[in-house]
């Protein structure tokens, strides 16, 4: 075996790289008036980075160069494909009373 796969929790850097700002991120410090379950009004803005664009990106990788930023060149987060950052926004408002 040339390279061993280490389980996620073995590298703190890799863990921090993921858990701090990826997955479901709650943006604001908020207070929701809440009395039992009879009243809650939450406005949730959900931004789901479209999986489809990632799939497209996977297709494009290798075809559209440059895909890598050399260490000496200007590095930009997110890679080369501009579509990768495309997000789908959905606004949901739930009101129950």
């Amino acid at each position, binding site marked *: *075996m040339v*390279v*061993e*796969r*280490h*389980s*996620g*929790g073995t*590298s*703190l850097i*890799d*863990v921090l790289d*993921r*858990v701090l700002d*990826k*997955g*479901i*991120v*709650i*943006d*604001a*410090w*908020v*207070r*929701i*008036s*809440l009395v039992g*379950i009879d009243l*809650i*009004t*939450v*406005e*949730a803005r*959900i931004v*789901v*980075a479209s*999986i489809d664009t*990632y*799939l497209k*990106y*996977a297709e494009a*990788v*290798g075809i559209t*160069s*440059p*895909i*890598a*930023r050399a*260490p*000496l*060149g200007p*590095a*930009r*987060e*997110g*890679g080369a494909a501009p579509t990768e950052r495309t997000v789908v926004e*959905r606004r*949901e*408002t739930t009101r129950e*009373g």
Partner: protein
Amino acid sequence: MTVEEHVVGYGADTERTPDEGKYVYCIIECAAPQSFGRMGIGGRNDEVCTIEHGGLSAVVSNTPVVVYDPTRENALTHEHVIETVLREFTVIPMSFGAIFRTHDDVVEFLKDTADALRDVLQKMEGKIEFGLKVNWDPETVLKQVEEETEEIRRLKEEILTNRLTSTYFARMQLGRMVERAMSEASDAYVREIYDQLRGCAIASRHNKPIGDKMILNAAFLIERERAAEFDDQVQEIARKYEGRLRFQYTGPWPPYNFVNIHLKLERAGVAS
């Protein structure tokens, strides 16, 4: 990096235990109550269990309502719980530090975000993430590049032997040439690695390399059943470049790099 406070909810009513909240690790699709063991965050060995609504479950443990710093212990606990859940379920991970004040707050959260959560869960069904970082040794590559590129070799020799009247411009030129050659070498490696791996990956995410030795910092989304196949491909490409590139291969992870749900909760006026 600043870590935002993720305390959600407002526990003005004191009949509830005022200082106990629910730390949320991740969301799974599961109607039956689950217990994953006493390994909750906060060092009290709180039980990690589920709060369910409409077939979606939040994996939680009790905690004082405090802001957790992402210390080594806390971050690894967060990750360890998710990894445990990941063995049996498809997981949408929460980012670190999300605490809801009450059980009911968690239920409301599930209720309000159910459509998005189901959508993402469905897309992530049976998929896991692997991380791959690839490092090279810039010194070695530099030497190679100098040897292999005729014009670099010649220019360097001219500078060293002082045959030029002004070496300043020549040095600048040499620097640019070397930079371009290194960049091309890096691109070529990365392209080849992707070519090897994309056949059995569903998607990939290219993150910013860290430091000057890293040429690739990527995450791959893989069907669980094809994990072994992906392993083989990583082995193959690593073998090919043994001695030249160093591979750091991690996983399985929950699909952190492929799920990005941003929740902005606002107080929405006065409810009647």
